[in-house]
């Protein structure tokens, strides 16, 4: 945490004081010059697993954050989620879009001394293709058909159909290149506790669920890493993380709630980093359940909710009102907008659908009050219960009765994914975070129609959204390699989805991390990751 002593102008008084200090230092045996430099990162989630396969870096996002330091990938994201070279220096796609050729960096070594080459890439790609070894992240890896060694520094990856998101998959945490010799020596699952990659820091010690200590890898291809040790510690309580940062006990912290972030704003010793995430929050609407099958009603719900006020007041400005089914930093995002807060318009649309105020001002039709069952998790999404209460209140203001059910975060996903006839919610809070940064992945998971709407959704189309035009646009985007064309296709699909309102669209939150002001190089990625790979002391 401390620099080796810095140089200052020398005066007589200083010399004497210095001699005194030197004596103390000698007596204390403290060799300040040799003291290793350390950066400590207090994480909100415990790291329990360091391997890219067999569950992949549990828990999210903490394990990935360590994985991005120990391992390299062929390509990686930069802080703006653009794809940049890492172990591959360049690449090209065949004209049919099925073969990708990667040219590898020379002189790269794994942390166990094994040279990194095309054979190692083939080994890793085939490992991740194997669904027995790599059980998670299947949608990312299933489209890949194989890998071929062309020469020691050239490798080809082959897909069955053109796979537009291939680079996103390779840049994803699960694209980590692990040492084949280490796997051979220590066993197939050894990366879980004994990771060996080509990144700037290698494992020193690991107590699962408590802390990870990394030390600089002297033979790192990018040159000598800037600090001697990187320490990741699990600190679950946000106020404790903030206290530890203010006390100087740690150098980097993540997941700061907006209410605590504002208290750090004036502190000269601390720098805040906030970055809009990739997860647009909203309330999924059960579009099969009357009266929510009516477009006017769904649009009315969207006009009735003050999404700007939610972003500004609940999240103190660390959120923005969504303007598309994709978040602002997701590839393919197109700003659509509309649905600005307008309760009068909401009432008008509801009246058009036959819902008129009854004696107690609540809306009625054929003697039945308009009542919605709302599900919200507790502590799963940022500010979830607060947001749910504001949304319920705004819906009641236009005359809709709302019954809120709060669900423990561990069981929440199960309630979302029931077969259609068992769904107990009309609206349920949900947000999808495309961890590979690709809008195609998100549109495909949420809005391509389910093969059988009665069954639990295959991915996350829990609203049972069903629009043949969206299906064909997204399926086309999946096989369109040209980024501009792909973004156009996604943009058209986004517009249809947004206006059809299968969600009450809400906000996109910012991820907030902070560092001591003497630490530089920490990045916060829109994928919720706080990356300390290039962290150094100023």
């Amino acid at each position, binding site marked *: 945490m401390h620099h080796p002593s810095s140089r200052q102008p020398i005066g007589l008084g200083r010399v004497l004081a210095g001699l005194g200090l030197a004596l103390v230092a000698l007596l204390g045996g403290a060799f300040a010059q040799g003291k290793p430099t350390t950066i400590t990162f207090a994480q909100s989630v415990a790291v329990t697993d360091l391997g890219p396969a067999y569950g992949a870096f*549990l828990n999210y996002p903490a394990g990935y954050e360590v994985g991005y330091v120990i391992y390299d990938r062929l390509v990686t994201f930069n802080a703006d989620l653009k794809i940049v070279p890492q172990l591959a220096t360049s690449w090209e796609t065949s004209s049919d879009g099925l073969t990708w050729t990667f040219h590898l960096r020379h002189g790269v070594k794994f942390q166990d001394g094994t040279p990194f080459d095309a054979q190692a890439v083939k080994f890793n790609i085939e490992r991740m293709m194997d669904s027995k070894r790599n*059980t998670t992240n299947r949608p990312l890896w299933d489209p890949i058909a194989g890998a071929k060694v062309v020469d020691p520094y050239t490798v080809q990856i082959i897909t069955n159909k053109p796979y537009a998101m291939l680079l996103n998959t390779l840049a994803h945490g699960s694209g980590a290149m692990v040492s084949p010799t280490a796997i051979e020596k220590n066993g197939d699952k050894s990366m879980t506790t004994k990771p060996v990659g080509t990144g700037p820091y290698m494992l020193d010690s690991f*107590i699962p*669920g408590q802390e990870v200590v990394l030390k600089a890898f002297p033979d790192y291809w990018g040159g000598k890493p800037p600090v001697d040790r990187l320490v990741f510690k699990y600190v*679950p309580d946000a106020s404790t993380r903030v*206290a530890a940062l203010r006390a*100087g006990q740690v150098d980097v912290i993540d997941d700061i709630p907006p209410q605590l972030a504002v208290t750090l704003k004036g502190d000269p010793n601390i720098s805040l980093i906030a970055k809009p995430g990739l997860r647009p929050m909203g309330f999924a609407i059960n579009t099969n359940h009357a009266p929510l099958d009516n477009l006017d009603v769904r649009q009315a719900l969207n006009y009735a909710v003050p999404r700007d006020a939610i972003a500004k007041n609940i999240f103190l400005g660390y959120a923005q009102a969504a303007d598309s089914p994709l978040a602002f930093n997701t590839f393919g995002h197109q700003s659509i907008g509309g649905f600005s807060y307008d309760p009068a318009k909401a009432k008008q649309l509801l009246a058009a659908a036959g819902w008129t105020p009854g004696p107690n001002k609540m809306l009625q039709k054929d003697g039945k009050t308009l009542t919605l069952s709302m599900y919200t998790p507790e502590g799963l999404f940022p500010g979830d219960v607060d947001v749910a209460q504001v949304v319920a209140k705004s819906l009641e203001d236009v005359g809709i009765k709302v019954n809120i059910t709060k669900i423990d975060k561990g069981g929440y996903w199960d309630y979302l994914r029931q077969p259609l006839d068992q769904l107990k919610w009309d609206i349920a809070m949900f947000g999808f*975070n495309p961890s590979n940064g690709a809008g195609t992945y998100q549109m495909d998971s949420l809005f391509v129609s389910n093969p059988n709407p009665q069954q639990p959704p295959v991915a996350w189309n829990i609203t049972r959204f069903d629009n043949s035009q969206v299906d064909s646009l997204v399926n086309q985007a999946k096989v369109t390699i040209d980024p501009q064309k792909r973004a156009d296709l996604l943009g058209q699909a986004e517009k249809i989805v947004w206006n059809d309102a299968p969600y009450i669209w809400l906000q996109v939150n910012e991820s907030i991390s902070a560092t001591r002001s003497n630490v530089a190089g920490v990045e916060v990625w829109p994928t919720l990751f706080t990356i300390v790979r290039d962290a150094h002391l100023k």
Partner: protein
Amino acid sequence: MLTYTLWRIARIIPVALVVVTLIFLLFRMVPGDPARAIAGSQALESTVEQIRHQLGLDRPIYVQYWNYLKGLPRGNLGFSGIYQGNAAPVIIQHLPPTLALLGSSILLTILIGVPAGIVSALNRGNAVDYVISLLVVGMLSIPNFWLGMMLISLFAVSYHLLPSFGFSSALALVLPTLAVSARLVAVVARMTRSSMLEVLQRDYVRTARAKGLNHSVIVYKHALRNALIPTITTVGLQAGYLLGGSIVIEQLFAWPGIGQLMINSVGLRDFNMVQGITVIFSIGFLVINLLVDLVYAIVNPRIEYR
């Protein structure tokens, strides 16, 4: 005494078995799917199925139960999907911080609580008694998480005297120990005071006084030994609860102990881990109970076991 001890140890086994069975069944009734927790929220249904198969969760419940029981004597607490391995070593790694906090808190509680209770009882009704009682009520009313936050903000953030979190050194024990023991000290002081007062009014104490025995001999040899029995029971019970980790304090101080592991594992539906912690917790609780009974005999030789 020896027979009694052995008998008590033997009795632990059926009780532990009942606890294991109950926990095993209860955890299969709560909503939430451990396979989905491992697969991640965005996984496909087929992926979840595959993990469920790997964990054996698709097998009949009695098969799962029998396999679990078979593994216990060999220290196999079951596969934790979150830690990708046997739950036992993970639990063992989380034990030292909890035991350290338990030990230091109980020590502090006895060192302060018992003397405070005695002094308070001996000064019944005068200023000293009032001051101690006031402190006791204060310490009982302050929530421990609030006290913890105040301690962090004062000693770690403002004055940089002590570490704010973590199990890194002996110094790091100071703040969580204070936060845990404040309430325990108050409970023990109150318990000691009232049982001391009761004993001091007994006939045998009056007799001892009438015999002209030295005041301190009466208090420490005759009265205290009898008065300590309820106090020991209280301390033993509290120690048992602390074995499960003071969840709030462990969260607040990022104390990597059993309580923190427990709360994480519940959130992630890591059934085997939670079961494992519960098994170790219940056995530990039974052992502490046994120790408490044995301490009774040491403190008060009139208590005998056959």
